[in-house]
């Protein structure tokens, strides 16, 4: 590969295309592109942040004490903290899901992986003479194994991601029930429960776990070339392969991240209830996670991701759920409103719909710009 690129270097600089464009023109074109990219980036943050602010303002109107925080027994209390705390599992899943979606895949198995890791941890805690660190390690190992299974099915067997992860989604809950012997396994372990209900520096532990995972993943993906590789594979896997990117390994890696995030989320929810419920742990959370990523503005086709936006998406979902409760509407409207929100977000992402919308708003001025309209 190296020798080829060396041979091509002089050829490129002599090519007619670059000869025709002057240095200045090239720079101008480059600058325009950078600027377009930059403004685009801003736009990506604008809508989700606006949505969250609107939701928070609605909450404030409905319940004036919504933003009030109080400090008691070494922990900050308040509705905002509750929202952050409750959205932790979905936020964790959304971090992993956004990486997988960026590679052009999807992971339906995260809910089942949550159930498995919860079940494994609960049973290990019941076994005498197992150190807490081993339990945590094995729990995360479950996520890594799940990611390896999903990832190798997708990249090495070339199975469609929806189908490959559907396998573990169906079988995973069975495996979790098998580990639990069909029962809800409860345990008494204050140290393990700490990751679900404990506090550190005045904030609930799940929030710290999300922040930690967010920072670690962000550093791993954005401070190394991995993130770029992931986006490149998501844009075009075969083109990336010709560039020398090991697209299969990159995909495998993405599913492992998703698996680890799911395992962590599973441990949090097991620690929360001090028990492992194979049937209900993480049930349908994969859909919420996908939704969070979509609300965060990532395209399901892949090619780009923003971990922060996905976590923001998870926050929006949780705030919406809280808003519905605060507003006094029965909780049964939750799904309906969620569905309408998804539809709106989806339509706003569609180019044609935006054009139609623009057409609606610009009809008054269209007479002046008749020539430009085409």
């Amino acid at each position, binding site marked *: 590969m190296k020798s080829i690129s060396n041979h091509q270097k002089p050829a490129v600089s002599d090519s007619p295309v670059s000869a025709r464009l002057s240095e200045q023109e090239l720079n101008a074109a480059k600058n325009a592109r950078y600027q377009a990219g930059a403004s685009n980036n801003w736009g990506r943050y604008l809508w989700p942040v606006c949505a969250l602010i609107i939701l928070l303002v609605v909450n404030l109107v409905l319940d004036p004490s919504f933003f009030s925080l109080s400090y008691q027994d070494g922990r900050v209390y308040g509705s905002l903290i509750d929202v952050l705390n409750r959205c932790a599992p979905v936020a964790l899943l959304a971090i992993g899901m956004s990486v997988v979606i960026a590679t052009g895949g*999807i992971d339906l198995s995260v809910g089942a992986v949550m159930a498995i890791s919860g079940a494994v941890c609960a049973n290990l805690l019941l076994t005498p003479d197992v150190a807490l660190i081993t339990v945590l390690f094995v729990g995360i190992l479950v996520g890594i194994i799940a990611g390896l299974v999903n990832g190798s099915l997708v990249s090495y*067997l*070339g*199975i*469609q991601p*929806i*189908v*490959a992860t*559907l*396998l*573990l*989604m*169906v*079988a*995973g*809950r*069975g*495996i979790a*029930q*098998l580990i639990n*012997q*069909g029962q809800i396994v409860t345990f008494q372990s204050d140290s393990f429960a700490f990751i679900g209900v404990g506090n550190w520096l005045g904030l609930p532990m799940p929030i710290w776990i999300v922040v930690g995972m967010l920072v670690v993943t962000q550093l791993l993906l954005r401070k190394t070339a991995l993130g770029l590789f992931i986006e490149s594979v998501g844009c075009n896997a075969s083109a990336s392969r010709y560039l020398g990117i090991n697209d299969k390994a990159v995909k495998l890696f993405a599913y492992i991240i998703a698996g680890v995030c799911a395992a962590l989320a599973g441990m949090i929810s097991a620690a929360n209830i001090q028990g492992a419920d*194979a049937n209900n742990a993480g049930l349908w959370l994969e*859909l919420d996670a*996908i*939704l969070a990523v*979509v609300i965060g503005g990532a395209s*399901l*086709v892949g090619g780009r991701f923003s971990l922060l936006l996905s976590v923001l998406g998870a926050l929006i979902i949780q705030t919406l759920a809280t808003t519905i409760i605060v507003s006094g509407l029965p909780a*049964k*409207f*939750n*799904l*309906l*409103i*969620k*569905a*309408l929100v*998804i*539809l709106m977000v*989806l*339509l706003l*992402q*569609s*180019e*044609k*719909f935006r054009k139609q919308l623009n057409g609606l708003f610009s009809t008054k001025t269209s007479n002046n710009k008749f020539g430009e309209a085409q």
Partner: protein
Amino acid sequence: MMAKRFLPLWITTGLLIVLFIIGSAQFEGFGSLRVITNLFSDNAFLLITALGMTLVIISGGIDLSVGSVIALSGVVCSVLITQYQWHPVAVFALVLPLGTLFGALMGVLIHEYRLQPFIVTLAGMFLARGLATTISEKSVEIDHPFYDAVSDFGLLLPGNAWLDASSMLFALLLIVIVVIMHFTRLGTNIYALGGNEQSAVLMGVPVKKTTISIYAASSFLATFAGIVFTFYTFSGYALAGVGVELDAIAAVVIGGTLLTGGSGFVIGSVLGVLLMGIIQTYITFDGTLSSWWTKIVIGLLLFFFIVLQKLLNRNNKLHA
């Protein structure tokens, strides 16, 4: 080539027969006509849903909303019959077109706005389930002479086997769908669309009309399945049919339909549902195996069939 196309179908049929023989040899009463008719009547709603799912998957799409549509259709039926005293036939005449419209709207979104079927039908799933819970959170019982008549209607077969109305309705729908898929232009268009959308456009396939028809048909069948489900349970419940979409997708894959679209048979999905049903029956007869083994076995089966499809496809590509 021909044989290869049918290979997954033969394997599913073979497994079905082998399991039936093993069951019959092991347990008394397993190898009877009654077990077979029960297989149909217990799974009638899933069979009907799987028919629609097959169309969608052959066209290269996916429909996650079917489970919720079943629940919505059941809830609307039961509320109208029980609380508003409508006649069931009038209710069906209202619910079926509405369900079809629901699917058609999803089709419009998918085609017009170039949205992924996966996410549009996911939204549809939330919407239908949300509507169902909004209408009634509690299970609504249906007590109507018409339902009694439906449950009394059936054919007594030898061996005390009972072919009920739901199974007959399913058989009717199966014939209609098979005719549509193999003897009409719409069927050819669906296969073409799943094979390659660009080529389909170039060949003059009306993509918009076909896409909308496919999702409309899937929702129609899911609505129908919801009605059949009320025959089975005599009630409508907003949380009914959770996860049915996954069972239907699994049945379609086990039946040998390619998930990338363009190839597969409706009858394969029927065999897929029956295979899953017979595994369940076997586990029930056994009594010592726990029900979660069903999930694991179905997962393994799925894996086996997906790998099989992959291998078959690889060979096809080499020959082409």
